[in-house]
């Protein structure tokens, strides 16, 4: 196995006409790290991946692989591995020929090729598949062959472009864990592009959330999920409840008291962020699984509009007089509802975040 190398992007940018596909962006990916580029379609994540691969030349900036500037190097000389969403297996070759292709391009002899292909097929748990036709394989099998083909040349960096997007849900979840385990075992620096937040949370060490051609936040999955920097990130990572509020007082432990724009004007404590001052208007975001129903210390009361059993949890949609949209609560236990259909909602300590009114949309 080869040594892991870091990947560095220094101020890369790409414009198509007047549209910024990618605003000047810098990013450091550590050796052996798995980073997810997460964002909606058109956010620039694919442009970024294609710049790293060498298919698209950046207007400005540099791409460094293992501290070597590869910005002007052709894709075939960068020593990368890549898996596309469509797998892109060569239809006129067998499974074995597909995997051996990269070795052949490197002038490795037939005996060693056969040996390495066998090893790779064992690694992706498709032993003995050498002579199969690729169009007779299932989606999951094609995916594994594509992965084997990209790994057999010991690439310095592995690029995955929505690699699991074409698989059905069950298979996708299995493959996420398998991909994660394989990446850890090989210790290969990996970038995965995805628009599926669950996939990003599952497979990666770090997530870079992108919007409108720039990275809006990078961080570990838990950090991105629990401490989103703005409204866009909080909403893209999953369901979130957003409340308007005003800052009323600061506390020495970097927390703030926020008066929520809810009936009874409850005041709650929320961890602060930079650039805040008393009486400033803020938005407070809290995940549905953090709100508690019918607990002690209820903060406000709400009317249950609907409830759905989702298997592992119960999802409630609540109506609160005075605010526009519904409030979502996920609870592990079913909730007892009073005759008036009202429940008390308790505010979680330390699980809400706030940002300015204008941050992210």
């Amino acid at each position, binding site marked *: 196995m080869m040594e892991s190398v870091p990947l560095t992007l220094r101020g890369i940018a790409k414009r198509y006409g007047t549209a910024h596909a990618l605003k000047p962006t810098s990013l450091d990916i550590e050796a052996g790290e798995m980073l997810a580029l997460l964002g909606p379609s058109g956010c620039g994540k694919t442009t970024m991946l294609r710049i790293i*691969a060498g*298919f698209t030349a950046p207007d400005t900036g540099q791409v460094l692989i293992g501290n070597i500037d590869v910005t002007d190097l*052709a*894709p*075939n*000389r*960068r020593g*990368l*591995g*890549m898996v*596309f969403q*469509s797998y*892109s297996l*060569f*239809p*006129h070759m067998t499974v074995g020929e597909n995997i051996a*292709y*990269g070795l052949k*391009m*490197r002038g490795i002899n037939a005996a060693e090729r056969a040996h390495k292909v066998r090893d790779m097929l064992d690694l992706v748990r498709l032993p003995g598949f050498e002579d199969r036709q690729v169009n007779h394989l299932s989606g999951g099998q094609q995916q594994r062959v594509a992965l084997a*083909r*990209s790994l057999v*040349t010991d690439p310095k960096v592995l*690029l995955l472009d929505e690699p699991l997007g074409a698989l059905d849900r069950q298979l996708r979840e299995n493959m996420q864990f398998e991909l994660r385990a394989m990446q850890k075992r090989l210790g290969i620096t990996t970038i995965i592009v995805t628009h599926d937040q669950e996939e990003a949370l599952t497979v990666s060490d770090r997530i870079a959330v992108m919007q409108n051609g720039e990275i809006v936040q990078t961080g570990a999955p838990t950090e991105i999920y629990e401490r989103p920097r703005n409204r866009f990130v909080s909403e893209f990572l999953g369901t979130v409840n957003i409340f308007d509020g005003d800052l009323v007082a600061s506390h020495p432990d970097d927390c703030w008291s926020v008066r929520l724009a809810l009936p009874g004007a409850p005041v709650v404590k929320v961890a602060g962020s930079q650039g805040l001052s008393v009486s400033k208007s803020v938005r407070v975001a809290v995940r549905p699984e953090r709100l508690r129903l019918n607990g002690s210390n209820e903060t406000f009361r709400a009317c249950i509009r609907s409830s759905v059993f989702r298997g592992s949890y119960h999802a409630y949609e609540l109506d609160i007089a005075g605010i526009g949209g519904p409030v979502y609560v996920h609870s592990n236990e079913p909730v007892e509802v009073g005759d008036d259909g009202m429940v008390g909602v308790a505010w979680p300590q330390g699980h809400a975040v706030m940002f300015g009114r204008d941050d992210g949309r």
Partner: protein
Amino acid sequence: MSDETCPGVAPEEPAAFRRERSFRLASVSWAMPALIFLLIFLVLPLLANIARSLPLEDPFQHYARLLGDAYYLGIVRQTIKVPALTAVACLIIGYPVAYFMVRHAGRWNALIVFLLIAPLLTSTIMRTFGWTVLLGRRGLVNAWMSDFGMIDKAVNMVNTEWAVYLGLVHVLSPFMVLSVSSVLQGIDRRLEESAQILGAGRLRVFLTITLPLSLDGIATGCILVFVLASGSFLSMLLLGGGKVTTLSLLIYQQFTLTQDIGFAAAMGNVLLLLSLICMAIQLRFLRRRGV
């Protein structure tokens, strides 16, 4: 036939089956006018042609002459050689054009397709005759070459083998371009990008991925050009000046000059057989690749 396929005749059949039957009946009856047309204007004339080529007194005399006589055998050979060389030339000229169209032309693609198809709307006679104007002794090419001092006296360019190939390639290369480009269009660029990432340079990508995957288009284009070239006689007639004689030109001559209709019919059948063999090869080729 009509009462057998009538949907009302078999009431004991299950409904679903009956619906399928009547659907099939509908599709056959809609095709009837075309089938009748083909029967009267294609199948019957071909059968008549076969009958005409086999005179009662000595049924195989025409075929024996065609395939036994060295002169005629040479013409049969020429009928294979000229279209084959034309197909190769069209491929060499047409493939790069098709590749450019699909990979680099972008929004100009539609314009190129238009420019390829537009000449097909002009009569082949006009286009072929144009070459005699250009290449003639007092033609444009000779005039230019002598103006630039490249030649002292006019060069004979019409009535040569080269002129025939020039005419054929000019008329038929659009078919090659369109056949190849339609297949190239279907090749996923990601395949080429995957090969590139795996270490293949541009030439290797082309030789190991693009070219093998476009073999279908190449085969279709070559067979199309071959069949069309073997059936055409205008280029040979107008540009060859007797230097290049193929079966189709000979048929034309047998019909209009010698009026040996039986012999012409026999040659027509040999030519038809040649085309059918090509079609069979193409079908086999396509089926083998599972397209």
